[in-house]
């Protein structure tokens, strides 16, 4: 028993006013789905049903796309950039004003710790709208030619790991560039998108500019394949990304894909070791490891491997796993039973293949979906846990002897989203960063995001960038 035991410090749920059921947000209002079917959104921490949401069928998607097209033709594409920008500023402010509510709802529906939804997801979402709001009337300065034009209707499909933030990453640049959108949130985390729909209403956003269609994979497919969608933006798994790329082959739809990763976090022997340990922890246990750019492969120089792993284990013993709404929780619930099964299966494969499994002592709640932070040592590049994206709190530790070997191992993957480098030697960091085939390289830090900073992958991690000036490219004809 630790001497200093933190008493429960739960954030109040009272700020969230959930309805028992939600329709689709189409043309500025909530409508019942023609499909007549619904899905339940549950809290992964308790398995409690939070609300029922509509499952949009093909006809519902069509209705939403038609609303988006109408809004594009009649209002949004005719509005000046300055006016579009003012709507986005309004939305940004509303997100800030309702930040507590959004954060609690996000943690309820997703299972992520409240401190992350409060300190990362929600403020970042607001920041994205602020950033792109300012671009709306400055697009001619974006390096995309003298008169960048919107593409039309964007169909956007987002994942469950950062529901509101991914929505912001998608909607803010699309609207800034003059497109209208139909967005499908993830099946297991639709609620913050529906609250965002209310925010659009409060902002008096013209009807049809933003439409939210909830549902599962079939809904997403109907949206992506809808003939009147001009642009598809998807964040999710590489497998689904490939399906989308195939289904859009031969069309004139523009596509950006933000897919999986197997990020290498390289720790050289001269690393600032305490900060490196923090970076390793943040790299793989932030958001339960449900992060496409997670540093899921720790590549540590062999001459310091033992020390680094010892420090890491000591540090992990202080991680607090549990109630996502508790302000002291570091690691929350796994988002779904299906994801938990996948993590469990891959971790078992790690053991079966001979890697050494370790977790700190931690008591997991009896209901809900939980997985203790896990470290595998003695992992080699041929092990499945070193190659496949686990998308959970599971770290694989590999070693290297020389910088060349570090880079070769880091790049030895079909993915190319993120990488980390830890060293006190500037030239070695730059040398390494130059050679890493990854869209984001964090040197002496990890998992930092900013609306001004382009993010996206090489190779099978997808294509296109979100964030910064580069993020405008995805939503402009040029």
């Amino acid at each position: 028993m630790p001497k200093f035991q933190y008493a429960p410090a739960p954030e109040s749920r009272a700020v969230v006013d959930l309805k028992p059921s939600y329709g689709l947000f189409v043309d500025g209002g909530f409508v019942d789905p023609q499909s007549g079917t619904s899905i339940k959104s549950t809290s992964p921490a308790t398995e409690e049903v939070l609300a029922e949401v509509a499952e949009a069928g093909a006809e519902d998607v069509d209705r939403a796309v038609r609303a988006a097209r109408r809004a594009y033709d009649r209002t949004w594409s005719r509005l000046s950039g300055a006016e579009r920008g003012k709507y986005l500023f309004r939305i940004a402010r509303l997100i800030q004003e309702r930040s507590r509510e959004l954060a609690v709802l996000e943690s309820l529906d997703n299972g992520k710790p409240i401190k992350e939804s409060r300190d990362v997801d929600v403020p970042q979402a607001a920041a994205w709208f602020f950033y792109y709001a300012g671009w709306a009337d400055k697009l001619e300065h974006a390096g995309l030619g003298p008169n960048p034009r919107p593409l039309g209707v964007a169909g956007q499909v987002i994942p469950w790991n950062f529901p509101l933030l991914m929505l912001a990453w998608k909607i803010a640049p699309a609207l800034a560039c003059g497109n209208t959108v139909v967005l499908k949130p993830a099946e297991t985390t639709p609620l913050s998108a529906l609250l965002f729909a209310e925010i659009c209403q409060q902002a008096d956003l013209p009807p049809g500019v933003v439409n939210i269609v909830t549902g599962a994979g079939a809904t997403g497919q109907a949206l992506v394949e809808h003939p009147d969608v001009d642009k598809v933006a998807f964040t999710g798994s590489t497998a689904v990304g490939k399906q989308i790329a195939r289904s859009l082959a031969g069309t004139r739809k523009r596509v950006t894909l933000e897919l999986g990763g197997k990020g290498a976090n390289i720790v050289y022997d001269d690393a600032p070791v305490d900060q490196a340990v923090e970076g390793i922890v943040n790299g793989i246990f932030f958001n339960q490891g449900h992060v496409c750019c997670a540093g899921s492969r720790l590549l540590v120089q062999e001459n310091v491997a033992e020390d680094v792993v010892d420090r890491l284990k000591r540090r992990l013993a202080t991680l607090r796993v549990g109630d996502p709404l508790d302000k002291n929780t570091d690691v929350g619930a796994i988002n779904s039973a299906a994801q938990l099964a996948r993590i469990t299966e891959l971790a078992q494969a790690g053991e079966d293949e001979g890697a050494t499994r370790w977790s700190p002592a931690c008591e997991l709640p009896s209901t809900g979906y939980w997985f203790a932070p896990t470290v595998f040592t003695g992992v080699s590049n041929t092990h499945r846990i070193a190659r496949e994206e686990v998308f959970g709190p599971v770290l694989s530790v590999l070693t290297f002897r020389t910088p060349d070997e570090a880079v070769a191992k880091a790049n030895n993957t079909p993915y190319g989203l993120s990488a980390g480098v830890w060293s006190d030697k500037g030239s070695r960091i730059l040398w390494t960063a130059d050679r890493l085939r990854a869209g984001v390289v964090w040197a002496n830090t990890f998992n930092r995001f900013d609306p001004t900073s382009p993010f996206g992958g090489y190779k099978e991690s997808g294509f296109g960038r979100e964030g910064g000036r580069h993020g405008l490219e995805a939503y402009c004809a040029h």
Partner: protein
Amino acid sequence: MPTDASAAERSGRLEVRKTYKLYVGGAFPRSESARSYEVTDAGGGFLANAAMASRKDARDAVVAARKAFAGWSGATAYNRGQVLYRVAEVLEGRRAQFVDEVSRGEGLTRDRAEQTVDAAVDRWVWYAGWADKVAQVLGSLNPVAGPYFDISAPEPTGVVAVLAPQRSSLMGLVSVVAPAIVTGNTVVVLASERRPLPAVTLGEVLATSDVPGGVVNVLTGRTAEVAPWLASHMDVNALDLSGAAVAEGVSWSALEAAAAENLKRVVRPAGTGGDAVEPDWWPTPGLERVRAFVETKTMWHPKGT
């Protein structure tokens, strides 16, 4: 130089004809399949036999391109610019040969062919000059909300498979190859099926300038036969389908679908809907083709004492 029999009679000397081979990894092999096909002029007259590349030639070309990637992408931008400018110099020196090939192959008047070759050389020079400017134009310093240095810069995508335009056998070719390699990509280019000769000659130009072997690999043959192997190749990072327009038996949508298997970056052919047309290559391009084959890499580093 291919020509008709009467020339030999007139000069009284039997001319030495040129063999058009593939250009792979800096060497000029015949197709491993030992096949060739007849290339004719615009009027149907025999010009030459060209090597008919097989899937294995495509495979070899991808291996050569991959091998050359580290060196070419690792060269300084200044160096790449110098090397590419050198290519333009050598192109200019072969002007007469290109004029002859373009004029016969595309059925252009001599004047028009000369203009075309001049424009192609100028286009090459235009792209050569971009080598050490692209990063400044496409990169950015990102003012993130925290004590971090945050910079984004374009990097080459990797190995780019290019279907060269079918009609514009030199101007079109230069317009698709130069933007890919200027940033450090290496290329496997499948030449215009019916007008492949300028592409092979370009290979000879590259071989005699300072371009390292494997940076550009030229295949000649049937687009419909070879393109699917390039489109589905898992070690090819990007696919330029410009030459799918008016190519016999080629479905660009099937090629794009095959490219999805490893999420290649795909440049679709010009046109609307499922149609593909070959665009006019003459207008000065923008940076679209350069942008298509670069990856933006963002790097973060804390700022502290």
